[in-house]
């Protein structure tokens, strides 16, 4: 059942939040032993929150747009008093003394956080295999990965254990798993959703966003978490967008660019799904133009310098001194090294070293500064493109979900699965992955819509057209 309908029925007193929560907990107990989408289920707290919602409804109080809706929250978003570990041993058992702004927004909207979802350690990965808790499986095919890094959030929604979840997207970590699990995933405009309480991977790229089973539910959740936050200096001081009410406005008159550079290299079935989606948009009145933004090909290289550089600094605080894992040693330097050696996984170590190198004296200009210049090039190329089109259409991923273990030993191969999603993060733009069929093996395919900053309303309208056209 959709989140919007649950909230409406709970608010109207036609359905009890406690029943909704029990149903969700039952789904979790049925599926999650196998899927492992959740790192922790907050059953008692969820039941208590549901009772609170039901009592509020009984008293006639306003219960918010997500009243009684169970939701999963990625393990890198701080929940006060609950383990928030980024699926890393280095933060094993760490309980933040504060809530992320998005968590407060969820609770104010009446949503019920039912569990914390699995992820690649510190959001570094594309398969949710880099988790201290072990991997999550793809709900469509248990031999496949759910994508990553927000694989737990995608699988939880894909399996129907929750109607909604929150993930974070630094280079595709919402859209890629959304595509792999057959759900909707939105990476909002940088600054639209507060990062306060999102444990940083790459601060200039990170953004919290929604997973949902429908475009409408994604819009509903995005409305709840969007908005200015004085605790985040990079938060945009703009009014929260009105999304749900505009979803049915269609795409008549919009120019949509079918972007060759976001299709080339994709499997034939995915390419066909993109073409079919373009046809749905055209049938709804959009003008489709073929286009190319060759600069996007530099995105991956720039990303794998900027993101690790920021990560090397962001993760320096996990030093064993204040919280998390400490491995005792003879002196502070050795304690520091021993704690990090034991606490960080291979991929995190690889990126810390890469980023440290890129920022080092003598290498900064050749790597970090050059990557920033490339980033500017990509931003300018997008700006040029959006002078002639309103939206851009392409694939979310080059392939459908790959097998568990298939790419763990080949980091470069793993990095390439984000090649289509990374450019929007570099530009700070919004993008959405919406389901567009499946391949011959029955694995979900996602297509991606991209737009300029703060074009969420337009993006979601177009995604709704594709969603509706397919059903």
């Amino acid at each position, binding site marked *: 059942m959709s989140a919007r309908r649950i909230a409406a029925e709970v608010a109207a007193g036609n359905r009890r939040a406690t029943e909704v929560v029990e149903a969700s907990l039952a789904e979790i107990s049925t599926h999650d032993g196998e899927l492992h989408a959740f790192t922790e289920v907050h059953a008692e707290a969820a039941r208590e929150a549901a009772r609170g919602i039901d009592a509020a409804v009984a008293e006639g109080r306003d219960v918010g747009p997500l009243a009684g809706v169970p939701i999963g929250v990625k393990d890198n978003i701080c929940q006060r008093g609950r383990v928030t570990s980024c699926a890393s041993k280095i933060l094993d058992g760490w309980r933040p003394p504060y809530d992320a702004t998005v968590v407060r927004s969820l609770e104010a909207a009446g949503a019920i956080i039912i569990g914390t979802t699995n992820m690649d350690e510190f959001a570094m990965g594309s398969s949710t295999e880099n988790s201290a808790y072990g991997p999550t499986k793809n709900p469509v095919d248990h031999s496949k990965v759910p994508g990553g890094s927000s694989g737990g959030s995608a699988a939880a929604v894909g399996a129907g254990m929750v109607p909604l979840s929150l993930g974070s997207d630094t280079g595709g970590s919402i859209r890629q798993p959304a595509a792999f699990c057959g759900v909707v995933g939105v990476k909002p405009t940088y600054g639209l959703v507060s990062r306060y309480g999102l*444990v940083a991977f790459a601060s200039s790229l990170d953004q919290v966003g929604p997973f949902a089973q429908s475009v409408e539910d994604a819009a509903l959740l995005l409305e709840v978490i969007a908005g200015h936050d004085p605790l985040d200096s990079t938060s945009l001081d703009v009014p929260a967008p009105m999304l749900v009410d505009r979803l049915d406005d269609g795409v008549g008159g919009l120019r949509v660019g079918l972007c060759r550079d976001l299709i080339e290299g994709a499997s034939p079935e995915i390419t066909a799904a993109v073409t079919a989606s373009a046809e749905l948009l055209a049938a709804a009145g959009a003008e489709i133009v073929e286009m190319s933004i060759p600069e996007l090909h530099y995105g991956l290289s720039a990303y794998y310098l900027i993101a690790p550089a920021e990560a090397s600094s962001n993760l320096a605080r996990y030093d064993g001194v204040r919280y998390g894992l400490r491995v005792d040693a003879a002196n502070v330097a050795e304690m520091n090294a021993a704690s990090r050696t034991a606490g960080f996984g291979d991929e995190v170590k690889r990126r810390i070293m890469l980023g440290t190198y890129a920022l080092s004296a003598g290498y900064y200009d050749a790597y970090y500064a050059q990557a920033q210049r490339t980033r500017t090039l990509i931003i300018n190329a997008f700006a040029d493109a959006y002078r002639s089109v309103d939206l851009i259409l392409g694939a979310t991923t080059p392939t459908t979900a790959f097998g568990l273990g298939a790419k763990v030993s080949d980091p470069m191969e793993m990095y390439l699965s984000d090649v289509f999603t990374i450019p929007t993060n570099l530009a700070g733009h919004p993008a959405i992955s919406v389901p567009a069929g499946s391949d011959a093996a029955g694995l979900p395919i996602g297509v991606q819509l991209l737009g300029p900053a703060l074009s969420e309303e337009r993006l979601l309208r177009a995604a709704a057209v594709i969603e509706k056209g397919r059903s």
Partner: protein
Amino acid sequence: MAELPDDWEMVVGLEVHTELATATKLFCGCANAFGGEPNTNVCPVCLGLPGSLPVLNEKAVELAIRIGLALHCQIAPSVFARKNYFYPDQPKDYQISQYDKPINGIGHLDLPDGTRVLVERAHMEEDTGKTTHLGGTGRIHGADESIVDYNRAGVPLVEIVSGPDIRSAEQARRYAAELRSILIATGASDGRMEEGSMRVDANVSVRRGPDAPFGTRCEIKNLNSLRSVQRAIDHEALRQVMLLEDGQAIVQETRHWDEDAGRTQTLRSKEEAYDYRYFPEPDLVPLAPSDEQIDAIRASLPAMPAERRRTLVALMGEQATESQADQIASVVDQGIDRYVIAAAAAGVAAPLALARVANELAGALSDGGHLDEDTMVVLLQMEEAGEVSATQSKAVLADLVADGGGDPRAVAKTKGFEQMDAGALDAVLDAVIAENRDAWQRYVEGDDKLTGFFTGKVMAATKGQADGKAVNAGLRQRRG
């Protein structure tokens, strides 16, 4: 002052860190307060907890700009940067600072002797916590354990970097002293070096004569008093000269000043120097103060110490004596020169006003309490008119300051300080002389040391009510 031998010359640049006098820390709402129970004045942001984000304190920006304007710096659009290095008292293992785009660019500071020192930059950054190493060596290497207090973490700082323009330890001390006065005058800092509000690092090198290229420099960290600044630089320059004279090379390194031992020692060598890996802080947006904002701050800046000292010197009438110059510098530093100016404007002799303000008023204010300028002027007028003696005036002043004000005449009356009339004083003088004929005879014959003896006797007999000046005049008159 130590002199370097032969034709050696020292080259010194100072890096001065000053804490800003804001109510809250640089990036969070925690109080910017000194001391307190360890780790009580902290929050997720200044502890650098995962997920926390900094939000810039606007007041700190204003104070940083005040410092920049007072030092004639170019105020520029600036960018915060991360300075990455590990130390246990650094919560995030990076310090948010400014690097290639500081808020205050090139400026200068003029010393009282007329020399000008280049200010390269004055940038904003956050302070660290405080580590205490226990047991063992008592240093980070070799202590049994270390404990950290993060109350100071995130306190706003401005670092003022001078050019290598300073040529003596004495000049370095004067630069630090003048900078301190300016910081206090801007209201940006309380300038308390003993509490760490202002800390000085010195870069020192030596060379043979003013035309030789700069030598290899050493940086001396954490000089916590003006005296330490001068002593440490003198010692370090001499150490370098002796090494060079001995045919040895100077090793670029960071050195620690041991105040008790009176010498510097190695803290870390160049090889151990950090690669800070500066890069723009992605959690903050670039800072671009508007021209209107800068102009408004400039318009609100009070007169700077140099100008205020000139004003007081001019009030002294004739050439100010050396001790008056010291008093002038002192009252300007303490921001109490306004009392002298008010008194002089009301017709009180400026030297009397300066003496009372620099000594008695400054002392009384430092014990707490306050006093408005008009009340101080009335008291000075009473003293000048002979209504109260100097001794009585000081006693009245102490009471007024402790009470935070009052009517000086009423206070004098309560204390029984009514000036003796001339007839009563004459009678006491005559009686004292009559009781001490032998001493009086010696005084008349020229033993001036006895002036104090007779003054004391008269004061004792009048319980301090006699005016010292009138007593002296009476004694001189009777001596013939």
